[in-house]
Structure formats: C-alpha cells, structure tokens
C-alpha cells in the first residue's frame, strides 16, 4: 500500500489504512515519544495520543509530501502540547551560568554509546530540561522557536539548555570513568 493510499484511506476513517499506517510508523513514533516522555508507560500513552492526533490531522492536512517527516512533526508537536499542559515551577528562576562547551572526549563517548544509553541519559533530565535539550540538540529547533512553542523566554530556553548540557556532561563523565575502570 502506498503512502498516498494510506493517506486517502485514513482521511475516510477506514480502519484498514489506519492499521497500515500504525504498523509502518509505530516504532518510529515510539522512539520519538521515548525521548520526550518521563517513563516508558508515559511514552506508550504519548504514542497512542500521537496516533490519534495523526489520524485527526490527516483529515485536514492539505498536502503531505513526505509522510514520515510529517508524522515526526506531528508527534513532536503533540509532545510539546502535552508538555505545555504541565505546570512548571522553576522556569522563572534566574540562572546565570557560562556556556558549556563540548569537548573532543565527550564526542568520543557519544559516538561509542548506543542510542538506548543516550536515551537513558536524556531521560534522567528533569522534564523541562529534557524538553529543551531534545528540541534544540536533536530536533534542530532554534531558541526562538522553542521559546514560542513552550511559551517561555529565549533566555529561559538558553539557560535551561545550559543546565541540561551540564547534566548530560556529568553523566557522560561518569560513563567515561566507569569505562576507564573497566579497561
């Protein structure tokens, strides 16, 4: 079944095409949801809600050239919407800290790590930091875009990314030390 056939069927609310779309993209959507969710259970819920949103959005979408990237975008947007429903308490706290540069050895550790381990590190971040780290470092959003989507200031986005990076670096350092010990 081609992507266009799937889209046409989903627009008519036909289960066959909806099932086909789900089968084809469920693991990809779950992978995205795991980056944004706090737990696997929450990722499952987020995944299901994302598919509901995908089916709903398909009915009103004008033209979809690349179904996979469109689904990726809808899933990320749904994760953002889900996050925006949450209450945050530290966003407004001032936080002044110098930029955290990346070093060669950190790159080496990241290269050596498989994606599951990287995901574990990201999942240890508090939700706000994780959200911004994901959106900036992996999904390629700018601070301005993040600020607009999360309804925060760009300076908050920058400061939270800095804190998130510091936490990630600490985790990478721990991994490096344990790796050296193992050697």
């Amino acid at each position, binding site marked *: 079944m081609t992507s266009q056939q799937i889209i046409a069927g989903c627009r008519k609310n036909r*289960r066959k095409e*909806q*099932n086909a779309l*789900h*089968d084809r993209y*469920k*693991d*990809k959507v*779950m*992978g995205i949801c*795991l*980056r944004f969710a*706090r*737990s696997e259970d*929450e*990722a*499952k819920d987020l*995944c*299901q809600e994302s*598919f*509901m949103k995908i*089916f709903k959005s398909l009915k009103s979408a004008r033209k979809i050239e690349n179904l996979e990237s469109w689904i990726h975008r809808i899933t990320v947007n749904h994760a953002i919407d*889900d*996050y925006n*429903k*949450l*209450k*945050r*308490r*530290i966003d407004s*706290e001032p936080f002044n800290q110098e930029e955290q*540069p*990346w*070093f*060669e*050895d*950190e*790159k080496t550790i*990241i*290269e050596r790590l498989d*994606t599951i381990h*990287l*995901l574990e590190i990201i999942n*240890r*971040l*508090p*939700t*706000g*930091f994780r959200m911004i780290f994901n959106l*900036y*470092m*992996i999904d*390629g959003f700018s601070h301005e875009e993040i600020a607009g989507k999360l309804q925060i200031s760009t300076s908050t986005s920058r400061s939270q990314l800095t*804190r998130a990076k*510091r*936490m990630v670096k*600490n985790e990478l350092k721990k991994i490096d030390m344990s790796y050296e010990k193992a050697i």
Partner: protein
Amino acid sequence: MKKLSEKEIQRLLQSKFEDFKAPTPDNSWAKLNEALDTVGSQGAVLNYVKLGFAALVSIGLLFWYFQDTESGDLKVQNLTQSSPVEKEMSNSVTNEELVASRETESTIGSTPENQGKSSTSIVSNTDTGTPQINQNLGLILPEDEFTSSKEELNLVSNPKNPARTITKSEINRTDFGELASTRSGLLATISPYRFRAEQVPIDSNTVINKNSELFFDLSSFLLYDRLIPNQNDALFFENINSDLSLADRIGLKTKFGLVKPVSSLIDMELGVSYLLLQRNLTYNYQNAILDQVQNGQSNTTNENSGEKSAVHGLGISLGLQHKIGNKPYYQSIGLSMDVARMLSSKVIQVGDANREVFAEYQQFINLSYLTKRSLSDRYFLRIQPYLTYALSRTLPEAPIQMKPFGGGITIGLGRK
C-alpha cells in the same frame, strides 16, 4: 582538550536518533482501535452535554424574552393608570389581529350587560365612536386623545390596505395619550396571555417587594481545578499533569433559602445548599528535593496520585445582592460565600497508598448576576448565572492542593 562546536554535537546526536525505533507493545493497535471507537461515543456524550446546555440556555432566554414582553405590556397598562411614562413598545401589531379583536369585541360589547364589563372595550365600540372605558383598569382618557387613537386604528383596519401593520415608529409618532389608549386596548384584546398578565399587574416595585422571599434553586456548574504544589514541603515539582473528563467536571447544586431586603438596593441572602459532584481525577508529577535540583542534580522521581469520589456536600451560603439597571424586572449583582462540608469520604491516592479523607471543608466565593421574572402574583422565576472560585481546601498533608474554579447557571423558584 579540543573544544568542539555545538553544531558538531548536534549533528552527531541527530544521526544517532534519526533512525531510532523502539518496539511498541503487541496490543498497541488493539488499544488504538478501541480509542478510535470510543472517540465517536465520547463525541456523542459530549453532544448530549452540549445539547443539555443549549436547552438550558434556550429555556432561560425564552423566559427572558416573554417576561420582557410581558413587562413591556404591563408598563403601558400601568401608564394608562397614571404610572410614569414608559416608551418601550413591542414591535408591531398586525391588521389581522386588529380585525379579530374588533370582531370579538363587537360580540362581547353588543349586549347591554357586557357594556362596561369587558376590559377590552376601548377598541371595539366603533358604533358610537366613543371609548368604553375599562372599569377594571380604571382608564381615564380625554375624549380628544381617544379620538386620535381611534383614527389611527381606522387607518390600520382599512380594507384597502389589509396587510398593513402598525409599526413601532408609527405608534411612537402618537403622543402619550394615543399611545396609552391604543396599546392598552390592543394588547388586552389580542392576547389571552397578556390578559392574564394584566390581571396580575406587576412592575419593578411589585417584583421587588419589601418583604422576605423564599427560594429554591437548582444549579448546574462546571469546575476546573488548579493544582498547586504544597509550598510547605521542600519538594520540587517539575510538572503536574491532571486528567479529568468534561463529564466529571459537571456538578449539581440545590439551595433553599431566604432573601431579606436590608435597604432599597441591597438584599441579603441566606441559604442551605447541597451539592453533588462526581470526581475521578488522576494526576501525576515529577518531584525531587528542591535543593538537589537547584544544584543541577537530576534525582527526580515520578509519582502518580489521584482522587476518586462522588462528592456530597452540605453547606451554608451567605450573600448580598445589589440591585442594578433600570429595567422593569429585578436585576442585581451579588457576592456570596459558600462553606460546604463534604459528607462522603474521598479516596486520595498518593503513590501506591490509598487514604480516605472525611469531613473536608471547602469555601467558595461566588460572583453572580440575578434576575427575577414574575410567574404569578406570588411566585417568580430566578435566573442566576455565576462564577465561582475556591478560596481554600484543607488537605495540608497532600503534596498537591486542588482549588476548583468555574461557573454555572441557576434556575430557581421564589415565593414572596
């Protein structure tokens, strides 16, 4: 140690996650399929809720409209009884209605015993060309004013112009006396509904009587919850997410009470209320020790809490109503406070532990608009939209406090 650009690490991470896929549970499609099916049924429930709300609003508006018309008519009738001048008129009266009224009146007025007894004889008696003054209403109209009125009526009932209507502007052209005689004659003749109202004349002074009133209200309301972390613990709450369906937010309240005027503008209201609210709220949050988070440590834990209850509450209500507007019917804005004690137990779930809570108190402050519409000489309808806001909730040990806010509409019956 060599520094790298941010873009380089970004590209590396993006390449790592570009094709990242994670296995989903085997039953994921079954669950999704079920969810897709329930969307339709939930939509149907929501439609019923919307329909109910629309019906309630429509009934309220309908009462409003007809009561407003009645009040307008009565103002004119009062006007014929030397009440203050009112210029509000209903929009038009058709020629057909006029003819019908004339025929009716000819029949009634033709017998000598009916002369002077009919309350509608002003318009009907065209034989003599003089008005039959309604004894019941006590109309006192100068002869020339009535003649002017009669000329206008003749114009309306001209057979060459059968579909002609008297418009509001035309009636407004006439002076006070014409208006009074035309209106009182026509309205009393045409409508039994208005005739009934005429028998029970009301105006703003009769609705707002000087005596106490009893009332019984039924109210439907919609509440949302503010979820506020307990500020007295040292916990950091990253986020709080609640889940409550629309149907679970709707509640019902009945109130029985007494209204006592304290001045010409202020009424005091005291009532006893009973409220019923279904509540099945789950909320989850991520918490950690505040100091650790501020120091950049990420030892947050996920918690799930919830609350399941059918809340029955008994409360007292005290409020003040301030009369507003210059309409013939009663209008006021009011501020009141409800203190309710929950009668049923509530199950609070914190993590894996369940705990029952009894005797919770809730205090609500309400801002309302109230209007009263007369149903008879003793009874009246109360329509009262309002906003409500919870001041406090006494669950000191709970990690998260809930403070509901929302609004509702009350429809009630009052007795003078």
